[in-house]
């Protein structure tokens, strides 16, 4: 029973990471109908920024915030400089552009920070841990919940959040009422970058930091986004926690660790085949 609880809870902790990545993906998908394959690499790069600052003696939480600011600015810059050039390009061309960015960021990180696997510090005191969860896992759940709450509050209660939602939902009408849709998109990219950075910084002490650390996590993020419904950000967050628990339990009791990634594949296919809109998504009806 104890092992089961342990697996369940640490699944929730991992789920928080998938939830954040899923949320970042859904935010960009809602606004642009593109899937950002470079999301994981952007997050990884920001985690390296945090690590470099910490190693230079900057206090953990200051480094954390600077890395988030960096991720935000980088996200905005990517949208402004690269992505918007491809507004009218075919879908496949955009996919290739995202893959190109994935290669670029990954290679730059390997060059600047080496491909060596490095340890990443955890800010949470060991005393916080319990029988079922390590201190870092508890802290990770806390940070994820705070992030989700902040993002929710931002979109729900601030005029800027409202403008961003409007721009994503109906760009033409938003433009007519004076919202600068282009900038709202860029802000959305920045925000998604920052949320991804939180996920990577929280994941790094567990999976260790290296340029390819996010490949698996990104896949679970996709699974989370699809499970929750790709047009529902909060669904993606819930989906993340479900995927985390499912992955951990399946890894412990069903397929063993060596096939863990295949669990994501199975989740994605089962969800898409049985309930394509996801658990909380709305079904898109196309008019003929």
């Amino acid at each position, binding site marked *: 029973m104890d092992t089961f609880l342990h697996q369940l809870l640490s699944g929730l902790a991992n789920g928080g990471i998938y939830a954040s990545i899923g949320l970042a993906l859904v935010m960009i998908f809602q606004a642009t109908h593109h899937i950002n394959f470079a999301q994981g690499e952007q997050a990884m790069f920001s985690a390296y920024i945090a690590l470099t600052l910490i190693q230079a003696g900057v206090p953990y939480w200051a480094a954390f915030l600077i890395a988030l600011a960096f991720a935000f600015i980088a996200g905005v810059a990517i949208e402004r400089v690269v992505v918007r050039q491809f507004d009218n390009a*075919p879908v*496949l061309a955009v*996919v*290739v552009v995202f893959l190109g960015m*994935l290669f670029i960021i990954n290679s730059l990180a390997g060059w600047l920070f080496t491909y060596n696997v490095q340890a990443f510090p955890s800010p949470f005191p060991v005393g916080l841990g319990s029988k079922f969860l390590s201190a870092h896992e508890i802290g990770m759940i806390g940070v994820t919940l705070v992030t989700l709450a902040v993002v929710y509050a931002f979109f729900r209660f601030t005029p800027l959040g409202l403008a961003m939602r409007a721009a994503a939902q109906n760009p033409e009408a938003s433009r007519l009422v004076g919202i600068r849709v282009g900038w709202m998109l860029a802000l959305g990219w920045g925000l998604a970058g920052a949320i991804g950075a939180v996920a990577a910084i929280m994941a790094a002490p567990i999976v260790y930091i290296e340029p390819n650390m996010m490949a698996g996590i990104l896949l679970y993020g996709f699974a989370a986004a699809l499970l929750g419904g790709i047009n529902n950000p909060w669904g993606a967050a819930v989906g993340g926690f479900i995927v985390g628990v499912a992955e951990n339990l399946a890894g412990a009791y069903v397929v063993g660790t060596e096939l863990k990634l295949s669990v994501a594949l199975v989740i994605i*296919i089962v969800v898409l085949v049985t309930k394509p809109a996801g658990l909380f998504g709305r079904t898109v009806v196309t008019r003929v």
Partner: protein
Amino acid sequence: MTVRTEPVMAAALPKAWSAWQATGVVALLVIAVIVPFAVSSFHLLQLTMVVIYAIALLGLNILTGYNGQISLGHGAFYAVGAYTMAILIERAGMPYWSIVPVAGIVCFIVGFLFGLPALRLEGHYLALSTFALAVATPQLLKFHALEKWTGGVQGTFVPGFAAPLGLPLAWDQWLYLFSLGIAAALFFFAWNLLRGSTGIAITAIRDHPIAAKTMGINISLYKLLTFGVSAMYTGIAGALGALVAQFVSPDSFTIFLSLSLLVGAVIGGVASIFGAIFGALFIQFVPNFADQISKAVTWAVYGLFMITFMYLMPNGIAGFLKVIGERLRRRRNS
């Protein structure tokens, strides 16, 4: 009404060749046959890979370009083809040339089966599920219950052979010509398939599924068959690739292979048979070129090339050439 829509359909399909186009293709083939006697064995290896990638990209192009189903997981079918070759040579002792069609059939079946859930997925959803397939492929190949056949993490060696009929050729020269022959046959088959009524059905499903359905096209059947044929092409390429590499292991078939295939298909030009050749040249030679520019950030340079190509030619190299060709023709006519 029909007159208005016809050119759109026709433009997407390969047409009968004009005299100079046919001459061009024959000339290309003649040069391709002479090449193995003129270059070093390293360059020959690269060119063999170009031929093999061209087959794989053509397969992906039939699915993604003509049928509109995006696949980020074709590396998985390539892997199945490669493993079929390795296992049947090593464990069953079959001659390599007889395994090529077997690999094709195996991959056709695997593709057909993967196409079943894919039937319900469109656009991004299909892209994501095939992406997941590609990420999971190495893990599935390492799976210990299959280790008896696959060789597990270590992989399996694939032996080289002598050229048949006592031809005075080295194995790598023969392998190049063997691949080239198969590629020529498969390109002809694809051209023939796509210009006929099957091709019209396949592209109609991409352009307007509902209209296609009302015309009496069995959408599910055609999509499944397209998935199967596409996987068959890529699987045959994988089987040949295993002969070239003389080795298969799970880590040769990572997500990177699948992504490269998609990059090649898109940069070469989707919905174009010759696009596959341009794409194959791109994914074989541009990484080398990027490596010469900078050893430290090779893949960043490669990524920059990808983005630049897409910026300058959003419809790929073949699409770009087509626009140029049409402009020239219009200028000549006016």
